[in-house]
């Protein structure tokens, strides 16, 4: 067994998603043998990301300023809001080049088995945004799996009485997959072919 600083590093790395004990050990030894400047840059980057990055006060996308780049962009329309589960899904939709509206990042999907209900997501914040009255269409781009579908069902129920068009990405996205893994062509097509929920 390792001890001291090396053991601590292996333990910390092992907590990262997708890093098993063997990989943690390999990365730790890589860091140990790396150039001191490279390691400084890495540790700086780790510290800066926690200091500088927060969430946008409007859409909850990651941002280094109070409002993210998309919410600050005056050429984009407030008439369409695309609802996604996570910030990485914003990147996925942006890659398609199909969308010129704004986003709303929920922070996950409704999953009662994991104790996540509507109150644990940024749904109340979405309702507040919609009450401002600028929005004509809400596009539900939650993941194409059971939790994502149920979250879309819940939101549609809540939003349709407000007279806002609610649409869901077209099928063609493989069920059970993560939105972030959809290639931009498939996701772009799903966006174009989105269907209005009634």
């Amino acid at each position: 067994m390792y001890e001291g600083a090396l053991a601590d590093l292996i333990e910390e790395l092992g907590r990262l998603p997708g890093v098993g004990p063997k990989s943690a050990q390999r990365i730790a030894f890589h860091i140990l043998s790396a150039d001191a400047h490279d390691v400084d840059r890495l540790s700086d980057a780790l510290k800066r990301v926690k200091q500088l990055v927060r969430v946008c006060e409007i859409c909850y996308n990651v941002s280094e300023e109070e409002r993210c780049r998309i919410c600050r962009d005056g050429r984009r329309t407030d008439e369409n809001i695309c609802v996604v589960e996570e910030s990485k899904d914003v990147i996925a939709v942006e890659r398609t080049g199909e969308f010129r509206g704004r986003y709303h990042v929920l922070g996950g999907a409704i999953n009662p088995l994991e104790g996540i209900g509507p109150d644990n997501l940024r749904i109340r914040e979405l309702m507040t945004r919609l009450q401002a009255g600028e929005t004509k269409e809400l596009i539900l781009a939650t993941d194409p799996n059971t939790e994502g579908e149920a979250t879309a069902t819940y939101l549609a129920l809540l939003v349709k009485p407000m007279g806002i068009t609610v649409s869901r990405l077209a099928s063609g996205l493989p069920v059970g997959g993560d939105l972030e893994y959809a290639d931009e062509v498939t996701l772009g097509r799903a966006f174009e072919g989105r269907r209005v929920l009634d």
Partner: protein
Amino acid sequence: MRRRLFRDDAVVLRVQKLGEADHIVTMLARRGGRIRAVAKGVRRTTSKFGARLEPFGHIDLQMVEGRNLHIVSQVEGIDLYGRRIAEDYAAYTAASAIAETAERLTPIEGEATLRLFQLTLGAMRVLAERAYPSTLILDSYILRGMRDAGWAPVLIACAICGLKGDHRAFSIPAGGCVCRDCRPAGSAHPSPSALVLMRALADGDWKTATASENGVRKEASGLIAAHLQWHLERDLRSLSLVERN
């Protein structure tokens, strides 16, 4: 050592992310009881498996046996209820509570529970078909699932002395209805209609159950949930999130 390949059919209870692209799938299998298996690569959009391994579906699968986790090698959908259930929010929350109840009623992995498997499969089917209001399906499931675990509330006799009859008081610690003489301090006095509904739900008498009023359903749900949680060490997380309107 060569790992054994085996086949079973199962209801998917829970799907959790593992690493970059995998899922851990918890299922209740016809022969194998509650089992967990890794499905590799299912979150990549090129995977054909993903759609079949979604929560609440009935699947036929082939697995490679593992010590803790099996590995899914093939899977076919028999009835993929997940999508239809997700289109009805109340059904989705009820299905989640049914799945969590199934997990909690099977504390030992790999122990066969054919009756609970059939009960769980039947509950998912009627939820997907919208055959009855979803909260009634959930409550009937809990009552019948508890019967197999030996925890069913006594509804047609006194839980303490065994005297037959439609007793009015209900005591969770005593295990169900209690007669006038045995009734412990702090017993509940539910409305007679709530007890009629509970008896109907335990027997699968849907005609009586669906004729009940909303207030009565809520009363029965409260007693059933309290009775279940009393027997479990931890609360069910999904129960408080069940949509009851």
